């Protein structure tokens, strides 16, 4: 397949999705009229989209879906706010960024030692590690629910802005 044909192939999904503007659509369709390879590729992609259309809908929730959420909301929203307020009022709150930085440095050393294994794992948990070390140092993690708040600490900081 030539470079030009390859470029057209990149447009076939957008063509099927109706996402090409009029001029580009006309160019792609003109190319298709004279290129059996690209027509075959378009048809292959179209068959895949048809197969996806036969996919059954995701499983529906169990009865009581809304009630379970409202119960969790009532349980967790005040606790999250409460912990944030305790953090904000703590005399050692200035330690949070410093401890977070120390955790990040320690994490960096660990990552260098075993980069291949650690890269994804550590990158995805770095914020959690920082939050946990910072909050634990202030002695405000008392319950499993507090731990959950720690995992969302960045959001709470954002929400306070």
């Amino acid at each position: 397949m030539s470079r030009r044909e390859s470029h057209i192939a990149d447009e076939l999904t957008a063509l099927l999705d109706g996402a090409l503007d009029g001029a580009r659509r006309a160019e792609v369709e003109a190319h298709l009229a004279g290129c059996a390879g690209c027509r075959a590729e378009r048809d292959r992609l179209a068959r895949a989209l048809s197969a996806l259309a036969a996919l059954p809908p995701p499983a529906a929730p169990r009865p009581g879906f809304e009630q379970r959420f409202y119960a969790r909301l009532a349980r967790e929203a005040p606790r999250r706010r409460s912990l944030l307020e305790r953090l904000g009022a703590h005399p050692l709150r200035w330690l949070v960024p410093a401890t977070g930085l120390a955790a990040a440095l320690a994490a960096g050393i660990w990552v260098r030692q075993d980069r291949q294994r650690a890269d994804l794992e550590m990158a995805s948990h770095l914020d959690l590690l920082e939050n946990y070390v910072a909050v634990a140092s202030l002695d405000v993690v008392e319950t499993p629910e507090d731990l959950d708040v720690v995992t969302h600490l960045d959001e709470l900081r954002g929400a306070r802005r």
Partner: protein
Amino acid sequence: MAPDPDAALMLAFQGGDEKAFRALFEKHGRATMAFCQRFVKDSARAEELAQDVFLKLHQSADRYRPSARFTTFLYRIATNHCLNEVRRGEYQARPELDPASEDGAPLDPDALAGPAATPEEEARGNALSRDVGAMLARLPESQRAAFVLARFEGLPYEEIAVVLGTTVPSVKSLVHRATVSAARALEPWSGKGTPS
């Protein structure tokens, strides 16, 4: 932009109207759970993720600005949360559960659509779901997110670009590459609707 009734509800919630928030959950909570099911295998976990998304929404309501459609804002939170879940990887190893028998509770009859499937149709649908799930799990995360938003949520490329914080040409490329992967993975399903 056309008036967005969900944005009005969100603004009402910003003003302290908790009922407006509940109205948003009642309107979008189940769809959010369905979206989350494209990222995790079992429906109980998908429900938890959907709850997480709305808890985040509850906490970050002050950051919402009606310049973006509410659903765009919601998709952004949900996509980020689901991708974080996938990155953690802890649910990839879980065996797939039959959603109707996780705890013996029946599914919500209000949410069931259409006539009941025959056993053959159900088996075929389950097999197709497994193949699609496996295909999604193999996609790079940006392709996976773009593909789910385009194929299952029906979002236009422009809105996907806003949700993912990227450009329309980038979305076009992501959706195309993922669709090529899907075509390869679903080759056995092409034509008659059953793998040969």
